[in-house]
């Protein structure tokens, strides 16, 4: 495992006239991230996503638990192997894009022609090579994000930790960033993404974790998550006013969406067959069985609603 997080807990303390107040940002979170994969971290604002990233990067200090990256506790030396894009990168306002990449490249140990080549290649890949002589204050939000991504990729790190990498980027830009990330994954890099854009995470991630109020609500492969919640709608010829009591008792998830449509979450094909057999036995005429496509957003919304309850 490239990243191992075990029972990680983080508290923030604030002081006011009311006294000392502690807030638990992360509560016993455990995660394992495989090398060469794209891992998506999801959660509402304040769920603890950025806190988790800051703990991984050594920017914040844990209360308890363990973090191992490349098999070691995060330290200054390990950052040579990590590229990081913060949620709101703030660049030195008076420098141009080229100067900024020179600075971060040098701090990462690159020099001379190697650094120049890396800057050229990375900015060409992210389509900002024409803007390197522009002062960074003249950059659009999307260009700043791409510059942020460029500085994270510059030293060819094995692990990229990206906090909202496509925030403020237009749809075409988002597509090109997705392509870059997929290319990096194919090149053997491990990518950890925190994003609000669920469709994007679904498109590129191998595994995702969903955080809610500092707790890990669910973790697994994207394919397994969207498969675990298969929903069917069944169109009937007969019009119904209410569901048969015996049927409701046997299939508690079964709902009457309208007088001729039943909806039900089904765990597997066996359960679907059983439901259909029961409906036929009860003299219902089935016109159509439609499998509703469940995406990551549906899974996420459902989890969030459950966590609020």
């Amino acid at each position: 495992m490239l990243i191992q997080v075990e029972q990680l807990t983080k508290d923030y303390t604030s002081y006011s006239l009311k006294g000392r107040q502690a807030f638990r940002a992360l509560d016993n979170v455990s995660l394992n991230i495989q090398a060469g994969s794209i891992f998506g971290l999801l959660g509402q604002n304040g769920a603890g996503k950025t806190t988790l990233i800051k703990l991984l990067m050594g920017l914040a200090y844990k209360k308890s638990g363990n973090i191992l990256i490349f098999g070691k506790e995060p330290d200054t030396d390990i950052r040579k192997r990590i590229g990081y894009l913060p949620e709101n990168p703030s660049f030195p306002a008076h420098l141009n894009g080229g100067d900024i990449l020179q600075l971060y490249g040098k701090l990462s140990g690159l020099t001379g022609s190697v650094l120049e080549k890396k800057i050229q290649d990375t900015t060409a890949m992210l389509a900002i090579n024409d803007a390197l002589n522009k002062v960074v204050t003249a950059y659009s939000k999307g260009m700043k994000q791409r510059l942020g991504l460029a500085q994270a990729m510059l030293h060819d790190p094995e692990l990229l930790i990206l906090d909202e990498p496509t925030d403020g980027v237009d749809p075409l830009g988002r597509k090109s960033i997705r392509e870059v990330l997929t290319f990096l994954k194919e090149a053997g890099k491990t990518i950890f993404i925190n994003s609000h854009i669920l469709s994007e995470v679904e498109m590129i991630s191998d595994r995702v974790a969903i955080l809610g109020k500092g707790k890990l609500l669910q973790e697994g492969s994207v394919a397994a998550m969207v498969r675990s919640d298969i929903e069917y709608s069944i169109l009937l010829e007969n019009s119904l006013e209410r569901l048969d009591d015996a049927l409701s008792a046997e299939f508690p998830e079964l709902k009457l969406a309208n007088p001729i449509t039943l909806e039900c979450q089904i765990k597997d094909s066996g359960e679907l067959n059983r439901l259909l057999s029961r409906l036929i036995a009860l003299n219902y005429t089935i016109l159509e069985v439609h499998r509703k496509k469940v995406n990551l957003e549906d899974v996420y919304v459902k989890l969030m609603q459950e966590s609020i309850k």
Partner: protein
Amino acid sequence: MNQIAILINYTLKEALKRKIVYAYLVLVSLSLLIIYFTTTLTTGNSQNGVAEISLHGTSMQAFATMLTAKVVAGFGGFFSLMVFFSTLTVFPLLFNKGEAELFLTRPLSRTSFILGRFMGGVILGMLTALVFSVGVFTIVGVRFSIWDASIFMFPVYATVGMCAIFAGAGVISMLTNSPVAGLILSYSMFLLPPAKEMLSVFPAVKPFAQAVAALVPNTGLFFSGFPADAIRGVYDSSMQQLLIAGLFIIINIAVTILIFEKKDI
């Protein structure tokens, strides 16, 4: 050490792209031109010139020293204000979270980060003082053919003053989580001497005022009074303050690093 050098280089490079630094150079040039055109040399005690200085009974060298000291005493306050504006966003903004994150996720220790930014800010301030000093040295030399190097005491004292301000700003920024508040409060060290005088009339707070004055350097004098005295060859008043400033700088930088090492970014 290499990382610190990169940070110093970057701090200077970034500062030199700021308009405020060029505004400073223009203002220094204008001030030097004023000195050039308004200072006249007389052999009597005439009071007609704006900055008329009498050579009566003094040597040319003594005259040059006197003129230089007057310029430093007169322009020191203005200079410190210019330093404030030209370095306002250089050192204190190191605590800007978005910017600090990008630095601290490199193979760079927090101590190196603090020292690199601190030294970058101080070197920038020292260079601005040096520009002013070279200007005065040149103007006095060209105008009166006296090449008096005593003006170069000014960057020495000004640098110590700036170190003290930045060191104070570091600790206050850490405690308040506000870099700008840190710098403003640190600059308020200028107000300590008059505050001490005012508070001394109240017996209850007099010991406290004296204790603060003994622990906090009188930074205002490092930009005018002390270098002006040093140019005249008088060091008595500044030696104790140099010692206080030295201790103040070391303690404050150490405390800044200690807090920063434990702080969540």
